């Protein structure tokens, strides 16, 4: 048996700490506030999103987790009454800087929504649309490669390769969601935001998407909002707990689900909330 002395234990802890500090911060929220008209939805949220990791945002309904997620690619811009304060950076660059091209930002920070929402077009066109408008392919052959690679990365290629010209809406719910992920991947984003991507899916489709999330982590940084605590525990490396517009606690997922520091986190994940 391998007996760990206190010294080697200390070394292991130190190595772990160093590995953590070496992690690259892909996106950083700095005192982020959001108002919807008069109503304040987020209160000074400081949250780092680490590169090539899955960060899960959890909390009861109305806690601000989706609001925060939508700030990360400026989806809140589409809501007239929404005002965003504080600072959000992507690779240390302020994404709310007036010089930033929002369309380009959303190509770098892609999004997958709660309900699968494929365009009413063919499977091929669903994936090809983004690369085409962003001019990522010079010709049809290059576009074909992008479509195939994206569908492969989204673990949909085998099921879709013989029916690329059929409508995307004809796929099953789980397949549609993976198509939406393929569509997000097609424009080579750096960060993928997922807003409850599995809440409309059955357990098998959910498992496939979760497996996919784990694979995507190698190439992308992922932020996921989920109502399923088990899902957050399964797919993420970091978990952030929101409540009433405040960030309550953020930390390694393993710790958050076994021994969280804050009582509100404890009450929420153990099912003791109000």
């Amino acid at each position, binding site marked *: 048996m391998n007996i760990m002395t206190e010294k080697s234990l200390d070394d292991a802890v130190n190595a772990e700490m160093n590995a953590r500090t070496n992690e690259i911060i892909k996106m950083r929220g700095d005192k982020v506030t959001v108002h919807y008209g008069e109503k304040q939805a987020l209160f000074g949220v400081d949250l780092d999103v680490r590169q090539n990791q899955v960060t899960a945002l959890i909390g009861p309904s109305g806690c601000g987790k989706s609001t925060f997620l939508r700030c990360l690619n400026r989806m809140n811009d589409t809501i007239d009454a929404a005002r965003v304060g504080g600072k959000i950076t992507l690779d240390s660059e302020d994404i709310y800087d007036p010089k930033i091209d929002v369309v380009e930002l959303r190509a770098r920070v892609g999004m997958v929504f709660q309900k699968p929402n494929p365009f009413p077009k063919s499977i091929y066109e669903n994936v090809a649309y983004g690369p085409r408008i962003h001019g990522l392919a010079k010709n049809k052959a290059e576009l074909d490669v992008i479509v195939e690679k994206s569908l492969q990365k989204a673990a949909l290629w085998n099921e879709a390769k013989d029916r690329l010209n059929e409508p995307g809406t004809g796929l099953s719910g789980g397949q549609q969601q993976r198509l939406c992920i393929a569509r997000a991947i097609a424009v080579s984003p750096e960060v993928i935001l997922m807003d409850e991507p599995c809440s409309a899916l059955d357990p098998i489709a959910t498992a496939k998407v979760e497996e996919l999330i784990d694979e995507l982590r190698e190439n992308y940084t992922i932020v996921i909002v989920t109502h399923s605590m088990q899902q957050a525990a399964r797919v993420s490396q970091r978990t952030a707990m929101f409540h009433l517009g405040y960030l309550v606690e953020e930390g390694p997922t393993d710790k958050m689900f076994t021994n969280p520091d804050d009582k509100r986190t404890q009450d929420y994940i153990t099912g*003791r909330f109000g």
Partner: protein
Amino acid sequence: MGEHTVRSFDEELQHVDQLIRDMGDLSGAMVAGAIRALLTSDQALAQNVVADDTIMDAKQRDLDNSAITLIAKRQPMAQDLRAVVGAIRMAGDLERIGDLAKNIAKRVGAVGQSPTPRNLSHSIDAMAQLVLGQVRGVVDLYVARQAEGLKDLRADDQKIDIQYTAVFRELLTYMMEDPRNITACTHLLFCAKNLERIGDHVTNIAENAYFVVTGTQLPLNRPKVDETTTTVPA
């Protein structure tokens, strides 16, 4: 700690917790009974202890089933998860304490028939009282969720080890004095060893209970002073 939104979840957790308390109480009673039976050569009491072990085993099975079902149905998190997993592990140790008490009780007949030096029972009694205090203490501290107390109790195991070493030496001396003592002294040696093992199980329970209460593990190193493995007759 507040209540769960789903009340039956609370009831299931309480059931598991109650079983741990029951097993803790029973193990205390079994150890006390076995010791008294040994020191007073009380055969009837020894039989009771042996019979109690069946109840102990049934409780452990109930706890195992309840805990597994709870995990499958509720997917407990954080302190709830620790409480359930901790209960499974503590139940294993409590069940072993019951077995060891039963083993002491079974030896009552064999020891009673031999002319045991009377003063010998004195040092075994002292060791038994220490062990009994530990068994009762650990369950009480767990129920009261007292992390510091559990930490101290774990350290107290070394007092049992010291006492065990003393009993061991003493028994060797009696056996050398008069070979007619050997049968009884050997049985008593097993009894002392059983008590020492019970102390170790209490230590495990204390460590588990500490983890359940605090979410952190106690350090691995614990002072050990059982010297019987290196003791030779002087």
